[in-house]
């Protein structure tokens, strides 16, 4: 009988041990998700006790701050609709989004030493304080980008290819986060989806801007293509299907083919790279994963490896077919060419400070991906420079500085083509990489390229 008692004891201790393991799993691994669940009202409860920190742009301009009057706080977004999707909002009724949500714990003083300080503050009946967050965004450039989008559907991303710091992330149409209570029902029903951050979550066919990726894929397979000439009769036959080009480009080299955006040449290059080579390069450019930018972002998609038959490959090579990517991803692809094949990890938050002003988190530039080799990047850059000098992207030119770029006019089922431009400047020492898209707005060279040009000029004038 004593033996049985021993077994019973082991059973009970075993059950309780399982509970210890399960509780550890719940609190350590499931915990963060449960704490951030929108149905969990703890943040709202906590917020009522704390003076929430401020979100600043890179120049120290407030983008989100709390105003207090009669012991009641109101969250104010001075940049209004210009930064709505990136900065996000906090609202008792409609939850939280964007960086406001991502940095909740810092802004509310719930991290590190602030937690202890606020415990003391609470015990002593003093006000509890949150920390501040400084972004890499420049609100003046952001406003310019939004003005140029002018309420049309589209997005603009401007970033530093050397570090990954994002200077502009604009998404249009937008909304005023200061008036959520009045506009929420319309926002949800709006077919133009202003709540979506098109810059990171948009899914667009990249059109001819994708040719820089195709070129990288082909050159990785066969470096001698850099010296070869191609014949463009104005069409290409693949597997018995005839693909029409926009014009008869005659005999062109790779640089010229890029400058005039020759579909025949690039469809051929895609087929030359082969399904595996093409997909490998797409992956190397990070187009099939979520860019780790700290707010929700969409991973790009393309036809599955098995269904990448020659016709699909040819149309994917010119950015049509089943390829869908976001403007941020295309800006990062341009940044790869600008930065000798290296993509730096994109980031929006420069520093996080605690309630005493001590920096607790500071972003350092770090490599995200190696997209291609310096030689290939240089070759593609030649084509992009040529496109702005005497090709399809001339409208992006900026006086006193050489811009490199690539236009795109992506066909889509919704109507007129999407106008695309991606590029960087100055071409010899790139400091700025840009992506512009305007949905169903026509040709990239006439609609998107001028927006990019003006933005690059303004950014350089502002000292970037």
């Amino acid at each position: 009988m004593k033996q049985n008692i021993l077994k019973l004891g082991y059973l009970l201790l075993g059950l309780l041990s399982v509970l210890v393991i399960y509780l550890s799993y719940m609190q350590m691994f499931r915990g963060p998700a449960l704490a951030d669940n929108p149905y969990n009202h703890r943040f709202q409860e906590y917020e009522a006790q704390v003076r929430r920190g401020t979100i600043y742009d890179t120049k120290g301009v407030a983008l989100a701050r709390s105003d207090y009057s009669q012991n009641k706080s109101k969250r104010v977004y001075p940049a209004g609709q210009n930064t709505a999707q990136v900065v996000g909002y906090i609202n008792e009724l409609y939850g939280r989004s964007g960086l406001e949500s991502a940095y909740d714990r810092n802004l509310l003083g719930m991290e590190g030493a602030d937690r202890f300080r606020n415990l003391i503050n609470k015990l002593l009946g003093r006000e509890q304080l949150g920390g501040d967050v400084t972004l890499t965004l420049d609100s003046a450039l952001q406003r310019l980008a939004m003005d140029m989008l002018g309420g049309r559907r589209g997005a603009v991303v401007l970033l530093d290819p050397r570090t990954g710091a994002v200077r502009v992330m604009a998404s249009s149409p937008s909304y005023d986060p200061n008036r959520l209570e009045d506009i929420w029902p319309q926002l949800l029903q709006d077919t133009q989806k202003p709540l979506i951050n098109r810059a990171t979550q948009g899914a667009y066919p990249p059109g001819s801007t994708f040719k820089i990726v195709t070129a990288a894929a082909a050159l990785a397979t066969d470096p001698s293509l850099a010296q070869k000439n191609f014949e463009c009769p104005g069409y290409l036959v693949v597997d018995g299907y005839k693909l029409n080009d926009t014009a008869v480009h005659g005999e062109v080299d790779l640089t010229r083919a890029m400058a005039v955006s020759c579909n025949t040449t690039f469809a051929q290059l895609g087929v030359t790279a082969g399904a595996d080579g093409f997909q490998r390069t797409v992956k190397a450019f990070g187009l099939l994963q979520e860019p780790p930018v700290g707010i929700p972002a969409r991973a790009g998609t393309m036809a599955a490896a098995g269904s990448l038959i020659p016709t699909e490959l040819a149309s994917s090579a010119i950015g049509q077919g089943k390829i869908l990517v976001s403007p941020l991803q295309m800006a990062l692809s341009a940044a790869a060419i600008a930065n000798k094949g290296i993509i730096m990890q994109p980031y929006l938050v420069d520093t996080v400070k605690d309630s005493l002003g001590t920096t607790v988190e500071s972003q350092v530039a770090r490599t995200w991906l190696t997209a291609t080799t310096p030689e290939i990047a240089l070759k593609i850059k030649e084509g992009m420079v040529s496109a702005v000098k005497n090709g399809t992207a001339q409208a992006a030119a900026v006086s006193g500085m050489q811009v490199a770029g690539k236009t795109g006019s992506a066909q889509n089922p919704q109507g007129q083509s999407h106008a695309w431009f991606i590029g960087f400047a100055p071409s010899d020492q790139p400091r700025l990489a840009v992506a512009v898209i305007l949905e169903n707005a026509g040709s990239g060279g006439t609609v998107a390229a001028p927006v990019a040009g003006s933005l690059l000029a303004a950014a350089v004038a502002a000292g970037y």
Partner: protein
Amino acid sequence: MNSVGHKRSGQLFSTFASISRNRMVERKLLFLTGVYTLIGMLVLFLAMPGSTGLIALEAGLAAVAGFFLVHIYWHFTGFRGDCLLLPLTAVLTATGLVFLFRLNPAYGMRQSIWLLVALVALLLTTRLLKDFRFLDDYKYIYALVGLIALVLPIFFGKEEGGAKSWLDFGLFQFQPSEFVKILVVLFLASFLDENKEALAAGTRSVGWLNIPSPQEWVPLVAMWGVSLLLLVFQRDLGTALIYFGTFLAMVYVATSRIFYAVFGMGLFLTGASASYFLFDHVRTRVETWINPWPLIDTTGYQIIQSIFAIGSGGVTGTGLGQGFPTLIPAVHTDFIFAAICEEMGLAGGVSIILLFMIFVYRGMKVALKTKDDFASLAAAGLTAILGLQAFIILAGVTKMLPLTGVTLPYMSYGGSSLVANFILLGLLLNISHEAGSRL
């Protein structure tokens, strides 16, 4: 003459020496527990506005003094019960009391009065029932009293939290099932002690199987019936599970026949699955357990709030008084553990579980040290029922198992539960006193 006198004085001296060193471990541990309790109450005193903080502090002092008085009484009466069980209980009770004051001072005040009642009950148990062996003789009285106590709420009971297991006495409410669990253990210990040979061997054979004669197994099947009665009429899933689990454990301990445990589990599973299809409230519980999220506005609300609290605690917790456990409905009774996990974190939650594990370890040690089977069975049964109850509610509030509303022993708000579990502690200590185990 001289030599006799010398012998007597030597004996006296050794008795005195043993008394002065008596229960040293208990005293030291209780001292630490006292410091722990008062620090907790002090934090509340500092954070709470007005006189409630002061009352919390006073209640803490009263509780500490109460535990010490019990200890001092045992010290001078030469009580030889286990020295770890009282301090363990004191830590658990004090943590519960601190959290009750933090969650709702009104409940804290009532609970501290109940704690004093429970301490008196403990004292009386260790005094009046010190020679517990006479308890062996009244097994059918336990069965009868227990049954009546369980049946009463079905007719006169008050429904609370879906379970109809309360008797309303105006001034306070009384939950018979908490006390009946002690009678269940005593009845089983006594009955199994008497019939274990017959049950183990079996007196008649059906095919290859030896089964005992009806006199031996009918009372046991009746026990199974009582569990189902609780399940069906009182809708008290948790208590049914605890009774039945303890029942199986004790039958196994007495007979060494795993067959009974397996067969019993089969019976219970059959009953449980039948009730899943027959009764809405059982089905709701299971569905809420499997996926509470679509039911967040109705039956899933409470458990989701509980895991929100647990998840928000992290490893170190928010700190006492810094979380928002009051978002959980009924947090002071069944869900007090979720509040502890939020404010004391994984560290606090695991500590509580470890304390229960040590309790079970000491209880089983008492059962192993006894000289006869009745005492052994009773100690094992009392430990098992407490351990199971703790496990079932802890697993419930963390969503490891379907939630069944039972109290967390020594911690949840509730006078019946507190007093009953202190009597249980007293009985366990009496058994260990007889076995002469100290530390």
